[in-house]
């Protein structure tokens, strides 16, 4: 099924061998690593820990993030494997394991980004993300964890879209809402549990294939809104991403955009510089209120997982996406170069191409590895994992054991598929 995609959607990590090669020469006690991984997040984290172990780096020194946000996969992004209940168990297993052994790890990045990219409004992005956050906290509490033990490691991930002030207000409303939820709903005591720390990526869906150089300006404005909104980290998209994976030159401009904002503009020198602005405060309150209405409604439906299983969240997002498309086609939402101020288009040059040899060498390497690893050890580890999956044990230790003897991600996921089954999406179209 992955044919044609290997090496195009990120680096291929099939086994611990790939992870070791990826971090060869990179000391894992000196860097922070973010992995955009969800359904198999626990397994990738296990590989990372084992790679560090081989470098002689202990768990306590590891810093980084796994996205690990399965609810938004069902709702918006599509890379789920297992049904919600066992998926939530994998997530709480990670919370429990990390709070004990990898205290500096961000165990989840609760993501509105993909919800927005799938077409939601700003208010929906915020509401659905926080509703998912509530579901994770509830699952962790049900698994017996204490709120102040895991809540400080929760992190968030938002989108920076076109409407400059609306986005700033959205980030501010997110902090207000989350602090209130943690304090009032979950009785968190630690101030760190109340903090909503977030990463931002500029909105990929707003990049146009028409007059692609305009994307540099769009990205700049979006990045600025994220900084003024108080983001902890930032990803700026490259101008040519409406065509393909970005070229080296385009990526460099995207990085320089951040550097200009960070080092030249001075906008990062003050926390919440727009606090007190009548308009921004008004917008913040309005977004907070409207998001709260959604959260209340999702609560009434039985929480985020139930709302997703009923297809409610997906339908809401879809309807917004279609409304946005109609607004663009009617010229109500202006996109410069696309539906206004159009010009003759020149096809872009120097796009990045991923060689198909990448896939062939990956497949060959995997075959080789399977032939030379200790297959008896693999079979034993897989058997143990299956037993743990059927019971209630924390799955991180059996994952660790399986990846250590170079069981593949596919073998481990297939074992879990046998026990957990696979998720079938509800049809909402």
């Amino acid at each position, binding site marked *: 099924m992955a044919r044609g995609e290997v090496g195009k959607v990120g680096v291929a990590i099939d086994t611990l061998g790939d992870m070791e090669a990826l971090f060869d020469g990179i000391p894992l006690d000196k860097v922070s690593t973010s992995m955009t991984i969800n359904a198999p997040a626990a397994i990738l984290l296990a590989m990372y820990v084992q790679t560090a172990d081989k470098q002689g780096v202990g768990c306590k020194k590891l810093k980084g993030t796994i996205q690990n946000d399965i609810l938004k996969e069902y709702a918006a992004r*599509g890379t789920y494997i297992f049904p919600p209940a066992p998926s939530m168990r994998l997530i709480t297993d990670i919370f429990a394991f990390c709070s004990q052994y990898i205290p500096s790890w961000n165990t989840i990045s609760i993501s509105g980004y993909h919800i927005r990219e799938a077409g939601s409004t700003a208010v929906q992005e915020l509401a659905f993300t926080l509703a998912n956050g509530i579901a994770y906290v509830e699952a962790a509490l049900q698994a017996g964890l204490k709120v102040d033990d895991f809540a400080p490691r929760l992190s968030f991930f938002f989108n920076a879209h076109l409407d400059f002030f609306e986005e700033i207000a959205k980030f501010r409303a997110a902090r207000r809402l989350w602090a209130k939820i943690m304090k009032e709903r979950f009785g968190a005591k630690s101030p760190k549990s109340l903090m909503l720390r977030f990463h931002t990526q500029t909105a990929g869906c707003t990049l146009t*294939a028409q007059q692609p150089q305009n994307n540099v300006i769009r990205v700049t404005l979006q990045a600025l809104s994220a900084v003024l909104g108080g983001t902890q980290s930032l990803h700026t998209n490259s101008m040519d991403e409406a065509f393909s994976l970005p070229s080296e030159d385009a990526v460099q401009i995207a990085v320089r955009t951040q550097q200009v904002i960070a080092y030249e503009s001075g906008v990062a020198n003050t926390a919440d510089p727009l606090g007190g602005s009548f308009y921004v405060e008004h917008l913040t309150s309005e977004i907070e209120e409207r998001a709260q209405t959604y959260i209340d409604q999702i609560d009434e439906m039985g929480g985020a997982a139930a709302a997703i299983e009923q297809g409610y969240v997906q339908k809401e997002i879809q309807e917004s*996406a*279609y409304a946005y*498309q109609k607004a663009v086609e009617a010229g109500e939402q202006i996109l410069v170069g696309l539906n206004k101020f159009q010009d003759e288009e020149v096809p872009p040059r120097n796009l990045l191409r991923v060689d198909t040899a990448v896939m062939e060498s990956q497949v060959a390497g995997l075959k080789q590895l399977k032939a030379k690893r200790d297959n008896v050890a693999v079979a034993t580890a897989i058997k143990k994992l299956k037993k743990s999956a059927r019971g209630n044990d924390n799955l991180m230790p059996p994952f660790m054991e399986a990846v250590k003897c170079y069981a593949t991600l596919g073998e481990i996921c297939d074992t879990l598929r046998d026990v957990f089954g696979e998720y079938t999406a509800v049809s909402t*179209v």
Partner: protein
Amino acid sequence: MYLESILLCRRCKVPKKIRVLAAKPGLDGHDRGIKVICCALRDAGMEVIYTGLRQTPEQIVQAAIQEDVDVIGMSVLSGAHDYLFPRVMELLKGAGATDIIVIGGGIIPEEDIKSLRDVGIRAVFGPGTPTTDIVRFIKETVSR
């Protein structure tokens, strides 16, 4: 008598609704575009069957034949179009179903479009395409 035959002729000529299979081949989970297009085609009076995510080329061709569609519309944003689209065309040929019009869209560089058209993909719609263009293309091509 004369009047009746006209009515009959007209009745025969009432075009059946255009049937479209909207498909997501491969592992790519980006489905905003295809879902928006599903809505737009339905609003334009077509019958649309959406496959959902993670379909193999085999599943897509099988569904297209079973559902007796006039058009297959595939969306790929992962860069795998250069394998998946030709593979679907190959299977359609093998099944003798080359009368089905196949179109595609997604993140597809201009320079790839020629080779996709060479294997029989009738049109490739990139980012920014108004849905009305796709509706028009399907209506014109099917009625020909």
